[in-house]
């Protein structure tokens, strides 16, 4: 099977600072792939490089066989990549309805109305607030709106940047469930960037772990979940020493 999205040795800089140092990853159709890592690992930069918000200095990005390296973001969106940016970024002065219609900006087909109902179906809490300006929504609802807006593009690939950011555990669970449902029912391929490793590993098929700009681990999520490093660094499980305390003698890093 061919990969839907393929990054090869991508290097992206902020001025002189190398934010990602040769990242290669693949996303296969109808998978959920998650990218894990600490702050400053370069996860968001990977997404921005894919969606064209930033240009890589080296490497290539291929989407469904086309090279989309350093294309403009609007062109990339037209090819069917929907980016849900970090921190939601809904249009605060447009109503919920208008926000969703903005998501379908590039579409000229007749299915937009049906998709609008579909989004309200997935996010019933938005359905009651159609005419409300998006700025008045709660954080959780704004995140739902951002995902719904991306869905309105009928994307082949959805890039989700920290959908759990700043949400209560219950809402995180809800969002995770919806992401999973969108994947199975609507066949949307997802690339998910997360700090919440537990949630991400729960719902995705394949995972990459990044640290200071490099991919340090990649495996299926079942195996990642059972890997001791992941358990220790991201899931908060500690191996206890003989004395019942955590041992710090061997501190493992990938650096």
């Amino acid at each position, binding site marked *: 099977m061919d990969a839907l999205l393929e990054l090869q040795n991508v290097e992206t*800089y*902020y*001025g*002189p600072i190398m934010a990602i140092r040769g990242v290669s990853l693949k996303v296969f159709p109808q998978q959920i792939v998650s990218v894990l890592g600490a702050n400053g690992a370069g996860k968001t930069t990977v997404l921005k490089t894919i969606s064209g*918000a*930033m*240009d890589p200095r080296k490497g290539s990005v291929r989407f469904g066989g086309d090279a989309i390296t350093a294309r*403009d973001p609007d062109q990339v969106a037209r090819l069917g990549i929907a980016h849900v940016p970090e921190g939601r970024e809904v249009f605060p002065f447009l109503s919920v309805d208008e926000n969703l219609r903005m998501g379908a900006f590039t579409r000229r087909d007749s299915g937009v109305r049906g998709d609008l109902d579909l989004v309200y179906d997935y996010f019933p809490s938005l359905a009651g607030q159609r005419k409300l300006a998006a700025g008045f929504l709660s954080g959780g609802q704004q995140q739902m709106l951002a995902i719904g807006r991306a869905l309105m593009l009928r994307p082949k690939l959805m890039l989700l940047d920290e959908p759990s950011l700043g949400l209560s555990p219950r809402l995180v669970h809800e969002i995770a469930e919806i992401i999973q449902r969108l994947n199975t029912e609507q066949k949307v391929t997802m690339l998910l960037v997360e700090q919440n490793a537990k949630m991400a590993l729960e719902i995705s098929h394949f995972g990459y772990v990044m640290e200071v700009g490099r991919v340090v681990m990649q495996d299926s999520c079942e195996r990642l979940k059972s890997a001791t490093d992941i358990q220790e660094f991201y899931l908060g499980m500690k191996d206890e020493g003989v004395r019942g305390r955590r041992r710090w003698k061997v501190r493992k890093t990938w650096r």
Partner: protein
Amino acid sequence: MRFVLKTHYGQDVDLFKHSGQRFWYAALAIMVGLAPWIMDDFYLGELSLVFIYAIAGIGLMLLVGYTGLVSLGHAAFLAIGAYSHAYLLGHGVPFPVALAAATLFSAVIGAIVGLPALRMIGIYLAVATLAFAIIVEQVLSHWESVTGGYRGMPVPEAELFGLSLMGSQTFYYLCLALLVASLLAALNLLRGPTGRSFIAIRDSEISASSMGIHLARTKSRAFAISAGFTGLAGGLFAHKLGYLAPDAFTLLTSIQLLLMVVVGGLGSLHGVIFGAIFIGLLPQAIAFLRDTLPPAAAQIPGLEPGIFGLILVLFLIYEPLGIYGRWRKIRLFFDEFPLYRSATYRRQKSYLRTERVR
């Protein structure tokens, strides 16, 4: 390649970071100090004008570049400074007192204008200050008993320590001294808590107020200080003009002042000086250029504003940080000479959060 080893805490707030800076600033001081012996009176007058612009620019930079409040009405403060200075001189007040009073008066007016402006941000504030400038222009042209209305008002000759200010040398040194004093005042203001509170307000009002900064008071203070500097420049400008009339302080003057700080580079006092040189000398440079051009090209009407606008547009596109931004790049190149990384200032296609100055 230079590495500054800090051995005492005072070095963190030193105006000059290392001996190289001391050397170059001293060289600059000697150069501008000797200028009257090198240049003839015309150029000296132009240079004085640049200094006056720079003083007004310091005021505007504190407001726009450091506090993040846009003003489209700074010509009004320039006018208030100029008129009150000339009025006081005309009533027999000695020069230093008149200038100080004009400065103070502008600052007070600035604080009063600042009060309603506290509730406005961005474009609304720009419109409000624009309205203020128009009101002042109207007052100047109709309050005939004080300002002389459209007929204007002569600026009385003044004396300082027995020297007439009509002499271009004396005036040059006066402007230079006041510019240096203003620069030092602004630098000291900015490295102290007041200046930091201005910057804090520019970058995040919410964080600033939660650190205990009184937003209304600080903004009004910024307005007052800014208006004070501009009023001081206005007082000197009055002597430069020689005859005050309302049409010297129009919207165009306000825009010119704003252009000065933007082209110079928002958020830096170097930028003010560069901007003042740009605004003050470029029209002259273009006029000279016109003389050397073939007659067919030189007679195009509107050549000066055209070239002026073109340079401005090119700057905004290729050097959003202004002339100071370019200067900093050049300086860094020499500072890190063999190790300069060419990608240091390479930009991504969208603005990053750190590049944004409101």
